């Protein structure tokens, strides 16, 4: 594969895979929590939380990226706390690309998981409780297995979205080859230089294949959930 792709292209693909994977894995617990909260719980500010989660879906990505920069940049309040307390710097690093990708992919993940949680009949959980299962056990042995296809579908969608994230990423962490140049940023960069079309096309093909595969897998899993 390295023979087919140039070193710079390969670097971009590898970085995108890493960013998307880390972003997806780190968002999973938060995505599940948000899905359960939105599907099942009633609390003040539920509409606000729902809006906040879905905001990146409708905001121009460049705006999201700029807001991230304001908050997590070297001078931003959150950025300073992270740097001082945990020694973590996000701006212009691949870790920042992870945050940008995670935030942009989060609404897709939560939507898929929320549908799965809503499809679980609470009567089954009641039945488990009457059989002696505490809330934790009910979740682990009834709810979780039943929503698993939805969880995986949500994770796959989020992964694909994270792979393709461009606007917020380039605004927040720029486009530094080897550090923050993800697959879409590399496509953009190749298109800016003469003779870069062939490399851009190779990356475009990879991008289309990954996205299509993710959509098909997610559809398949969603249909499995409904059939049950």
């Amino acid at each position, binding site marked *: 594969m390295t023979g087919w792709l140039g070193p710079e292209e390969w670097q971009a693909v590898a970085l995108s895979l890493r960013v998307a994977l880390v972003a997806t894995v780190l968002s999973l617990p938060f995505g599940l929590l948000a899905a359960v909260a939105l599907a099942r719980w009633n609390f003040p500010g539920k509409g606000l939380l729902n809006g906040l989660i879905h905001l990146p879906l409708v905001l121009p990505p460049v705006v999201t990226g700029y807001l991230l920069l304001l908050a997590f940049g070297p001078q931003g309040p959150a950025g300073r706390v992270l740097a001082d307390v945990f020694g973590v710097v996000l701006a212009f690093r691949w870790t920042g690309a992870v945050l940008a990708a995670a935030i942009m992919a989060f609404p897709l993940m939560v939507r898929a998981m929320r549908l799965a949680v809503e499809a679980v*009949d609470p*009567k*089954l959980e*009641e*039945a*488990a*409780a*009457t*059989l*002696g*299962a*505490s*809330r934790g*056990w*009910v979740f682990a*042995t*009834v709810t979780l*297995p*039943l929503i698993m296809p939805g969880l995986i579908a949500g994770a796959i969608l989020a992964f694909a979205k994270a792979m393709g994230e461009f606007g917020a990423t380039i605004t927040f962490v720029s486009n530094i080859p080897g550090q923050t140049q993800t697959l879409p940023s590399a496509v953009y960069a190749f298109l800016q230089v003469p003779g870069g079309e062939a490399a851009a096309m190779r990356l475009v093909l990879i991008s289309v294949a990954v996205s299509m595969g993710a959509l098909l897998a997610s559809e398949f899993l969603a249909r499995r959930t409904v059939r*049950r």
Partner: protein
Amino acid sequence: MTLSLDISHALPGFTLNARFEAPAGITALFGRSGAGKTSVVNAVAGLLRPDSGRITLNGSVLFDSAAGQLLPAHKRQLGYVFQDARLFPHLKVSANLVYGMRFARNRSGPTVEEVCALLDIGSLLDRHPGDLSGGEKQRVAIGRALLSRPRMLLLDEPLAALDSGRKAGILPYLERLRDDLGVPMLYVSHSVAEVARLATTVVVMENGQVTRTGPAETVLSDLRMIRPLGVREAGSILPARVVTHHPDGLSELSVSGGRLLLPQTNLQPGASTRVRILAQDVILSLQEPRGLSALNVLPAVVSELKEGEGPGVICQLRCGEDYVLARVTRRSADALKLAPGQTLYAVIKAVSVDPVDVGRG
């Protein structure tokens, strides 16, 4: 094992006020749809928190609003069989059956093998709930509840979703639970036939209120219960004993008031049974009838009469130790000059008794 309950709870449209005691055996919670039966069972199970009241099982508190006590559902050790089975779709039958076992605090109790044999579900273990028929699902649900080693079984219309053939198929299993395992049960039903067949104690509910509690034989032959039970379903239960089976397809049973010949039952001679006789299947005669095709003639004394809104009169008869109800027209009642204390004969056609109405006693 006694369940005591005294609760009130506001529901949309009416207020639930229920107070009764359920002793050992099967306590049937009887009433029309919407009478509040399921809410009562949910309160016992811990799935509904009543506005106020107290529920105890053998003295241990499940709920007490005054003391602020509420035992969560998963700590109540009650097996709940729902109308819609509620088997876990992602687990095989075998995993569904043992689901509650890991939480069971009671070490003794029926084993998986015993429950499979009792409910005849051994061949279903490798199947998924989606591949089961309605009757199979309910039997698995009963097995699953039993294997959680409950202190009491709660059954909410477990047969309502089944056709009559499947119902008749499950009734003997429930009788075996009652008689062989001695599991106390709270059994919700709106079917008089099921109540008559299974119940030791009957609690009648109307519009959220408990209107009558008592032994099944007494409640079902009470003339004031005709309206809530429905006049076409009115009938009495006679405790009986199988005497012998005749070669012509009839079984002979002894009741306190004499002998009954009924279509053959599959119970052994000597077995105690209970027979439900519908009021509309009983004919009254002032003289001992002759030249009549009906096989069963029991001497009886009129104990009480009640006129209905239609053309009918319901007549409660004392027949030996037990009561028999007879439904006749007002015209016939006038012609026979029926009055309390009068002696006469109750005539019952053998074939009018549905085999489903002959159960283990």
